[in-house]
C-alpha cells in the first residue's frame, strides 16, 4: 500500500517518474514492490508505464572475493618474504590453492616475483590495482575500456540487465485507488454500502469453469442416434446378447462353405471352452448339409463333403448376421405353422475378429445391421431403403458397386461422397440373401431378404475426427476425450 500511495501521490505533483529504480531508492521502498504496484496500476489505467532496461556491470562471486581480500597476485606477493626466498611448497601452504595458482601466473606476468623452486621478490612495492578497480565498480563508477576488458577476461565482472519502468499519469488517473467489489454480498446490503460500490467489470473473454456433468461414451452416443433412426423406420431390435456362437449359425446357415478363408483360425476366434455346440435343430442341419454338398432349390451347391464337426465348433461371433440367421430361421418356422409375417430387424452390437490390432483395426468392433424380410422385395427396394437410411445419417449421395459375399446375391458395396475428403468412400455392404440360405430355413420361394451392414466405429471416427481407434475404444482411452466430445447430431437436420 505504501508503494501505491507513494506513486499516485508523487504523480499528483509531478509529470513523471523517470526511473522506478531511482524512485524506489529515493522513497526507501523495495524495487520489486514498486514494480508490482506499477503493473497493477497500469492494468487499471491509473498510470502509463514504459519499460526501461539498463545494463550494469556487477562483480562475479570471484570478483567480490578479490574486492574484499585483494587480488591473488597481491596476496601471493605479500606472502613472499621481503628478503631472501621461500620454497614453492612452503608458499603453497600459506595460500588458498586457487589464489596460489592464479597469483603465480599474474605475479610472474607482472614481473613482481622470480619463479622457480625458490620464489623471491623482484620489486619491493606493488599496488593492488585490480582490487581498486573492483571497488570502483561496486561504487557504481565507470571504468575505462581497457580496464573493463581485462576484468571481464578474468571473469571478475559480468553484465546484468536491470528492468524498471518510467511512469506517467494514465487516462484513469486518480490520486487514490477506488475500491471495486467483485460480487454483491450480504454485508453490502446490510451496511448500505451497495450505494457507493463500484463493481469490477466482468471479463467476458475468460472461460467459465466447466459445468460438472456426466458423459456418455461417443460410440454409445452415435449408437443411440442410429438406433433411433432404425426405430423411426419401424425396425425391431434383435436380441444380440450372445457372443459365443456355433460355426453352424455363424457360417453354415449362411451358405458359407467350410473351406472359406473366413473360417480360418487366422480370422476367427475359436473356443477352448465351451469348445463345441451340443444342440442344433437336426432337420434344418440336414437341409443345410444338403444345400452345401449338392445344392437344391435350383442351385448346383458347392460339391464338397460337409462335416458336422466343423459346424459344431464354437467361436466368438464374427458378425451379428449369426443372430440374423437364427431370427430368420425362427421366422420361417413360425410361418410354416401359422402365416408369414414380414419383418424389419436391426441390431448394433459387438463382433470379434482374430486380426492384428493397429490404428484402424481392433480384435472387436461394433456391427450395425439392418434387414427386411418380405414377399416380392427387389434390388430396387434395397437401393431405396439404403438411400432412406443413409440420408438420415447425413449421407445423401450414394453409389453402388458390384461385390462378392458368400451369402448375398446380388451384393453391393455402398459408397458415399465425402464432402470433406472430396472423394467417394466405402461405407458399408449390402445385398439380398441367397436362396441357398433362405430356402432350407423353410421360407417359400417368393420371400426375399434385403440386408446391409456397416461398422459403428468408422462413422464415429469420421464424425469426431479421431484417427486412432484405440483412442476411442478400450482401456487406453483418454478420459478427457470422452468428456470433451460434442453432441451427436447425426440424423438431426
Amino acid at each position, binding site marked *: 500500500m505504501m508503494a501505491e500511495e507513494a506513486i499516485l501521490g508523487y504523480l499528483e505533483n509531478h509529470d513523471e517518474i523517470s526511473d522506478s529504480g531511482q524512485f524506489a531508492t529515493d522513497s526507501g521502498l523495495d524495487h520489486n514492490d514498486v514494480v508490482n504496484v506499477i503493473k497493477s496500476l497500469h492494468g487499471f489505467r491509473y498510470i502509463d508505464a514504459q519499460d526501461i532496461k539498463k545494463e550494469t556491470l556487477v562483480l562475479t562471486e570471484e570478483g567480490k572475493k578479490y574486492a574484499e581480500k585483494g587480488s591473488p597476485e597481491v596476496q601471493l606477493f605479500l606472502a613472499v618474504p621481503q628478503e631472501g626466498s621461500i620454497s614453492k611448497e612452503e608458499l603453497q601452504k600459506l595460500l588458498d590453492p586457487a589464489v596460489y595458482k592464479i597469483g603465480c601466473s599474474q605475479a610472474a606476468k607482472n614481473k613482481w616475483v622470480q619463479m622457480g623452486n625458490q620464489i623471491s621478490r623482484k620489486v619491493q612495492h606493488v599496488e593492488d590495482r585490480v582490487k581498486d578497480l573492483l571497488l570502483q565498480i561496486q561504487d557504481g563508477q565507470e571504468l575505462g575500456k581497457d580496464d573493463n576488458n581485462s576484468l571481464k577476461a578474468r571473469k571478475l565482472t559480468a553484465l546484468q540487465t536491470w528492468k524498471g519502468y518510467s511512469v506517467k499519469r494514465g487516462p484513469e488517473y486518480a490520486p487514490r485507488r477506488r475500491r471495486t467489489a467483485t460480487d454483491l454480498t450480504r454485508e453490502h446490503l446490510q451496511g448500505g454500502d451497495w450505494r457507493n460500490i463500484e463493481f469490477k467489470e466482468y471479463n467476458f473473454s475468460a472461460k467459465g469453469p466447466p459445468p*460438472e456433468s*456426466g*458423459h456418455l*461414451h461417443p*460410440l*454409445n452416443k452415435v449408437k443411440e442416434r442410429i*438406433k433411433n433412426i432404425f*426405430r423411426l*423406420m419401424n425396425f425391431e*431390435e434383435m*436380441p444380440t*446378447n450372445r*457372443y*459365443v456362437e*456355433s460355426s453352424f449359425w455363424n457360417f453354415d446357415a449362411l451358405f458359407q462353405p467350410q*473351406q472359406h478363408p473366413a473360417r480360418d483360425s487366422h480370422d476367427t*476366434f*475359436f*473356443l*477352448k*471352452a*465351451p*469348445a463345441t*455346440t*451340443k444342440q442344433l435343430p437336426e432337420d434344418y442341419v440336414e437341409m443345410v448339409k444338403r444345400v452345401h454338398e449338392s445344392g437344391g432349390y*435350383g442351385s*448346383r451347391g*458347392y*460339391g*464338397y463333403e460337409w462335416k458336422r464337426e466343423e459346424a459344431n465348433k464354437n467361436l*466368438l461371433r464374427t458378425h451379428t448376421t449369426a443372430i440374423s440367421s437364427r431370427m430368420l430361421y425362427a421366422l420361417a418356422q413360425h410361418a410354416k405353422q401359422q402365416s408369414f409375417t*414380414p419383418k*424389419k430387424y436391426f441390431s448394433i452390437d459387438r463382433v*470379434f475378429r482374430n486380426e492384428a*490390432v493397429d490404428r484402424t483395426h481392433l*480384435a472387436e468392433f461394433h456391427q450395425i445391421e439392418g434387414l427386411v424380410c*418380405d414377399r*416380392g*422385395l*427387389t*434390388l*430396387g*427396394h434395397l*437401393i*431405396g431403403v439404403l438411400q432412406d437410411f443413409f440420408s438420415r445419417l447425413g449421407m445423401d449421395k450414394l453409389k*453402388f*458397386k*458390384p*461385390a*462378392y459375399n458368400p451369402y448375398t*446375391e*446380388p*451384393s453391393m458395396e455402398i459408397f458415399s461422397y465425402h464432402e470433406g475428403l472430396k472423394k467417394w468412400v466405402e461405407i458399408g455392404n449390402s445385398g*439380398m440373401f*441367397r436362396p441357398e440360405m433362405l430356402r432350407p430355413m423353410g421360407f417359400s420361394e417368393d420371400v426375399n431378404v434385403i440386408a446391409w451392414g456397416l461398422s459403428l466405429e468408422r462413422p464415429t471416427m469420421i464424425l469426431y475426427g479421431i484417427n486412432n481407434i484405440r483412442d476411442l*475404444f*478400450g*482401456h487406453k482411452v*483418454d478420459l478427457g476425450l*470422452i468428456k470433451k466430445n460434442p453432441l451427436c447430431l447425426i440424423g438431426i437436420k
Partner: protein
Amino acid sequence: MPTVSVGRDRLFSALGKSYSQEEFEDLCFKFGIELDDVTTEKAIIRKERHLDEEDGGVGDDDEEIIYKIEVPANRYDLLCLEGIAQALRVFNEEQQTPTYTLAGIPKDSMLKMHVKPQTSSIRPFVVCAVLRDITFDEASYNSFIDLQDKLHQNICRRRTLVAIGTHDLDTLQGPFTYEALSPKSINFVPLKQEKSFRADELMEFYKSDMKLKKFLHIIENSPVFPVIYDSKRTVLSLPPIINGAHSAITLKTKNVFIECTATDLTKANIVLNTVVTTFSAYCQRKFEVEPVEVIYSDGRSFIYPDLSVYNMEVPLSYITGTIGVSLEAEKVTSLLNRMQLRAEHSVLDDNNCNINVLIPPTRSDILHPCDVMEDVAIAYGYNGIPKRRLPSMKPLPLNQLEDLIREEVQKGDLSLSLSLFLYVLALLAFSYCEVLTWILCSNQENFALLNREDDQSSAVIIGNPRSSDFEAVRTSLMPGALKIIGHNKDHPKPIKIFEVGDVALLDESKDVGATNRRHLAALYCGTNSGFELIHSLMDRIMERSDAPEFLPGRQASIIYKGKHIGDFGIVHPQVLSNFGYTVTTNVSW
C-alpha cells in the same frame, strides 16, 4: 478379396485401348472390381524392405506402372491379366466370349494317368490336361506362374485342397502314374536344386525354406507321400510340395502337361479349368485343350478337363422381378453376353419366357439363377436401377417412437432393462463418465489380478489367441475399468466412471454352452475411499460380503428382492497394484 498385380501398359494393350486412371477406375467400379493401388516394381520392393523414397529414385519415367486390382473372391477366372482383360473386353462388347473345346483325339491315343489305390489315404484325386503348341513370351510366362501362385493362395487354400504342377511334356514319357509311397523310397532332384534328395530328407531340408516350409504340414505326418512318375520313373512332382527339376517348364516349352492333385475334386476341376482356359489363348489352336484320361485302380476312368457348359433355365420374370426393372428377353440375353454368359430365350406362352443360360467352364461362381440375375443387374448398371419404397414402410410419428422405446424398455429383454436405464440416468446426474472397454481380456485379468481363484467353470476361453490380451471373455467389467484408471493416472481426481455391458459365462443349459449377462459397473477413484458415494447410488439392501477383490470389511453385497444382484466395496490395494495403479488412492466399486 484377392489382389492381382498387372502391368498397366500390357493391360491396356490387351484391352486394345488406353484409359486415363479415372476412366479405368470407373470401368472397374461398374464391373465390380477395384483399382486398389497404382505403384511400380521398385516401389513394391522399397515397401517390402522399408526403404525411404530417395533410395530407389522416384523420377524414373521408364519404370513400368503396376495396377493392383482387387477381384471378387469367387472369380478365379479373374486372377490374372489375361482373365481380367478378356472379361472387360467382353463387358465393353469388344469381344465375344470364346468357346473352349477339347482336341478331338481318340481315347486310345490320349495321354493316361493311372492312379494307385494308396493315394486315397492322403490325396485321393488327380486331374490333368495338356496345352499343345503354346508360345510363351516373358510376360505371359510370368503370368502363367503368377496365376498358379494366386490359385494356390485362394481356392486351393494354401495347397491343402488342390496343388498344381506344370511340366514340359517333351521331357517326359507317358503314361503317368499317381502313387503314394514311403518317403524313404522316393528319390529325385527337386526344382531349383542340383542334387538328388530322398523325400524324407527333402522335407527336413525345406524346413528352413521361407516359401515352402508352410506347406510341409500337409503331408509331413503321413506314412506315405503322394508322388507322380512318368513311364521311365522320372518324378514329375511331390505334391503339394515341389515339382521335379527334370520336367521344369521354360520360356521355350512348347507342350505343357498340367496335373492337379487334390482332396476336393470339385475345386481341382475349377483350378484345372481356370489354368487351361486362360492359357489356351496362347496355343496354336486357340482355346483348344488336349484331354488326359485318368484311370483309377478299380477300373473307373475319367476324361479331363471337363469343359462342358452348364445349362441353367431361368424364368425372365424371376430376373426382372428380383431386380425391380422391366426388361425384354432380348435385352436380358445381350446383358448376359456382356458378362461372358451365352444366353437364349424360349417363349413358353404369352406371359412367360425362360432364359436359357449356357455357363462356360470359366464361370464356376454361377451356382443358382440368383447369380445369373446378379450378372444382369451388373450389366444393366446398379446405379440405373430405380429406387423403390418398402411396401410396409410407414414413417412413425415421434410420439409413437417414444411409446416404442418405452415398450422395449418394459419388455426388459432388449437394450437396458428399466432399472438399469434409471441407474445410468442417476450416474450421469452424479457426473459419472461412461467408458467402453474390450470384452476380451487375459486369463490373469479375469482371475489372478483380481485376487480371485480360477474355478475353471465360469470363463469362456479362446483356443487360438494372437496375444495374451485375447485369451478369454471377461467375466466382470472390473478389469476394463481398472485398466482405464491405470492408463489415466494423470487425470485430475476424483475419477468417476461407469460402464454398461455384457459379460459371458459358461452355462451348460444353453445350446452353445455359454450365456451373456448384462452388467453395470461404477467406479470412484479419489483421495478418500468414496465408499459412501457408491453407497448413495445403491438404494438397496446391503449385506456384508467377502469377495477377494475388495478390502475385507469394506465391502457389501447388494440384495434386491432376496436375490444377490451385485457387489460393491473398496478395491483391495493388492488388486490396484496388480493393475499398475500404485498411488495411494482408493477406488470404490
